[in-house]
């Protein structure tokens, strides 16, 4: 191998929607929105914190000087690590262009894998979902993939968390109805981690909160940001914005408005305690102007999410992205198309913590088959992002000469060495020849996925929590139940 100099290689494919100058332009516009228009904050404590930080208050309207935004950007950690809840192993490194995938949480409905019927999600369905996620190698973290609705709704968040943590050891992004729910969940996590400091040092969970677009921080959201900062726990803050509905119809306007919401959330969080881990989120998409849905599959959604990833990299903020979801009401060709586009673009852009894998029906319903299918799609996308290595060994000129014109490479050591690493072998995607496929029952991808889901539910055992830990968690859930009664 000769020496080389001045040789630039793409270690991975290079992909961007926005140039650095465009990122700057959008960031400056968002700062202008915060300074000029401001946001409403529906929590008195958060408003006090903002006032002390140097913001201008006018009733619940808060205007934020650019200097305060910049200060928050300076103090926020550029990276956040999430861990395995059983081993504490630091598995999910939210930094740079690392892209991890997981599910979403807030689907009221789910497709039952046994009956095929759409029904309300339950504690059992959430448990099943977490088992399936735990078993799938390309899923890195968990959100509940359903709202538990067969328990008292006011404290369903505690049940939901219990169902998750019993069925998976992967990191959990958790929702809660309010700070009281969060307090209970944090307490459960501290029991599992073995203490408050242990949890802070190796967090296996991050809180989740969202503003209400345009430019509103409700009491629940603002108080969660404050609580997370006080506890020193990571928080995901996710504006869910729809072009033409809650934000302007132009893509740059969507990014400006959405970013202004994220940055104002960041300021609340950092002003409470500098250096708190904060993950910028976003589900940026369009409102379909015919059906008025919040689209989870439009090409604009893909563009916006990739552009937001460019923004996050520009600002050096860990990012919570969205992929593997669909507007289709069943797991059909459309669901496949929309998942492929969003997962491929997400993997190429590299936002860090990407949720909503397994959502169908514009986020109203979850499907475990869809989740399982997307495990393959994520594998495909990850192969794409590994790119092409170019060196003497991979160029293989000696081998080409040895095999010669008209020969073949099947029985070569070089092939043996590389065919499995250079090529991704999906699990459910079928590449059998027609006759073999027919012999195996002419199954569609959905049928194969359904079989796999049922197999996991029936046969897979997640790593259990110690009995005493399980009991103490149960006690917290029961305590909450009692308070409701």
């Amino acid at each position, binding site marked *: 191998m000769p020496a080389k100099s001045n040789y630039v*290689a793409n270690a991975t494919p290079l992909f961007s929607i926005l140039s650095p*100058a465009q990122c700057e332009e959008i960031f400056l516009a968002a700062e202008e929105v915060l300074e000029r*228009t401001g946001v409403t904050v529906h929590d008195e404590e958060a408003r006090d914190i903002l006032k002390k930080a140097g913001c201008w208050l006018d009733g619940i309207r808060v205007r934020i000087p650019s200097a305060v935004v910049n200060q928050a950007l300076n103090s926020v950690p550029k990276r956040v690590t999430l861990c395995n809840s059983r081993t504490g192993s630091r598995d999910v490194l939210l930094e740079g262009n690392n892209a991890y995938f997981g599910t979403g949480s807030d689907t009221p409905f789910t497709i039952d894998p046994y009956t095929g019927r759409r029904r309300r999600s339950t504690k059992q369905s959430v448990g099943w979902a977490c088992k399936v996620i735990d078993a799938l190698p390309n899923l890195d973290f968990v959100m509940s993939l359903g709202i538990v609705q067969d328990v008292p709704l006011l404290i369903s968040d505690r049940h939901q968390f219990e169902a998750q943590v019993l069925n998976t050891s992967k990191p959990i992004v958790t929702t809660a109805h309010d700070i009281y729910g969060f307090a209970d969940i944090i307490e459960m996590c501290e029991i599992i981690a073995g203490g408050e400091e242990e949890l802070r040092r190796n967090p296996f969970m991050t809180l989740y909160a969202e503003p209400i677009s345009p430019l509103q921080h409700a009491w629940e959201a603002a108080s969660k940001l404050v609580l997370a900062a006080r506890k020193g726990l990571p928080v995901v803050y996710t504006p869910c914005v729809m072009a033409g509905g809650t934000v302007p119809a*132009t893509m740059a306007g969507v990014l400006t*408005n959405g970013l202004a919401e994220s940055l104002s959330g960041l300021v609340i969080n950092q002003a409470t305690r500098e250096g708190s881990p904060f993950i910028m989120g976003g589900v940026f998409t369009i409102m379909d*102007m015919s059906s008025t849905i919040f689209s989870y599959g439009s090409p604009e959604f893909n563009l916006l999410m990739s552009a937001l990833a460019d923004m996050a990299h520009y600002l050096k903020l860990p990012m919570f992205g969205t992929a593997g979801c669909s507007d*289709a009401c069943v797991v059909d060709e459309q669901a496949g198309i929309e998942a492929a586009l969003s997962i491929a673009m997400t993997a190429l852009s590299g936002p860090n913590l990407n949720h909503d894998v397994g959502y169908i029906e514009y986020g109203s319903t979850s499907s475990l088959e869809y989740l399982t299918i997307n495990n393959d*799609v994520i594998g495909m996308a990850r192969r794409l992002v590994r790119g092409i290595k170019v060196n003497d060994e991979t160029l293989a*000129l000696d081998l080409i000469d040895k095999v010669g014109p008209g020969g073949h490479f099947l029985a070569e050591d070089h092939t043996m060495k590389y065919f499995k690493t250079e090529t991704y072998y999906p699990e459910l995607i079928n590449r059998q020849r027609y006759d073999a496929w027919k012999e195996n029952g002419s199954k569609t991808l*959905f049928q194969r996925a359904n079989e796999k889901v049922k197999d996991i539910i029936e046969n897979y055992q997640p790593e259990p929590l110690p009995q005493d830990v399980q009991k103490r968690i149960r006690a917290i859930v029961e305590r909450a139940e009692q308070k409701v009664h």
Partner: protein
Amino acid sequence: MTKSQYVRANYQVNATPQFHVLSEHQCENIYYGALEALERTGAEVHSRTALEIFRQGGCRVDGNRVRFPTRLVERAVSSTPSRVVISDRHGHRSMFLEGSNVYYGPGPTNTYTLDPFTGERRRPKKSDTVRAGIVCDALPNIAYAMDNGTPMDVTPTLADVHAFQALLENTVKPIIHWGFGIEQYQDIVEMAAAVAGGLAELQRNPFIVLYSESSPPLRHSEEAIDKAIFAAKTDIPVIYTPCTFAGGVAPATMAGSLVISVADFLVGLVAGQLVREGASFIMGGLISTMDMSSSILSYGATELSLLSAGLTDVARHMKIPMFSTGGCSDSKVIDVQTGIEAAFSILIAGLSGASIVHDCNYMEYGATGSLELMVMDDEIIGMVKRILEGIEVDDEHLAVDVIDAVGPGGHFLGEMHTMAHFRDFWAPTLINRLRYDGWKAEGSKTMGQRIREKTQNIINTHKPEKLPDEVLRQIQTVVDRAEAREAAKKISK
């Protein structure tokens, strides 16, 4: 309104998304690897005509083995036009194969077809090629026509001639066409010339592109290389496509597969440029991985997308238009897998900026052609085109004033700004965004069902523009003459 009062300086924008698999240096490395393989290992050429051309051109010929001096290959590359313009049947220039323009369409010669009415997988007939022409003609995002299957209810050695007739009479779009050999290509060019109003007109504004495939590694059959030579002589653009699959006919490493693909293309290119300097060549690229379990050449693998995008980077480095692959699947039926694989490859091929992306109809690792898949792909291409438009960033699109006017807690639905821009949203036709209840009320249809309905509807109702009777007669004369020729051959045998 003060923000737009200033003028920006040194402001560089991404007018479209930016995507590259390989750096400029890596492209160079692969290109040089191909030159080294051609100079050192050389290629096996099974055509006496071609061997003579190579010998006279200065290659080292040793039996069937031809070794290519680098200077000769470099000269061929530099004499190849960096742009090729393809017209439609009217001679209107419609496909500008240059820069990073992307055009999508189907592929050829499948040995089965999925009947869009019965769902049956069966052998293609000439009437299926007629349908292919009609569907290509009707779909807005399909830029050209290709045959979607070799018709098997006609004289086998003239299946290409019959398929061409069927396409020619049923679409005004450009036609990229496979032929078995020189005689058939002569028939095909003659038919096309009849439509164009003479060979000279056809050469000036070609609406057909010829297509030839070599069999790697480094092996070129007589008809493959002779077709490339024929195209150069006849002055009709040609695509030269080595079918490269990693681990089978090329190294299992992606870079090694690219070397084989580029080297094998260059063999065809050198032959063509030696015949006519400046002949229009398009670099082909059917490049993927061999599935080591089923031993198929995978049309759904990520590696197809990755390798095709890498090859496109090399093509741009060489400044030669690129014929890439996408919109295809290994699935045997139209299902979720088909959607995933088609979308994935259409997206990556689009981002890579390949000039032509073919095989937007290939099911079952290429064995079966499906018009329903083409209809599905038409929708996916629409989505991807929207993505390729990127994001515009200026004061109007940043909309800071509108955001301020609406304020926290308001909404943008009734704003003039929304009215002015919401039509920029991509409008779906087969993708369904109805709410659950509305979708249920419309019969709970899957996208596959909607695709089938649309395909049938196109076949039943779309009426492509007819050719003049006189031209139709001339075309038929060519077909009849070809039939007589083949019949005579059979008797003499």
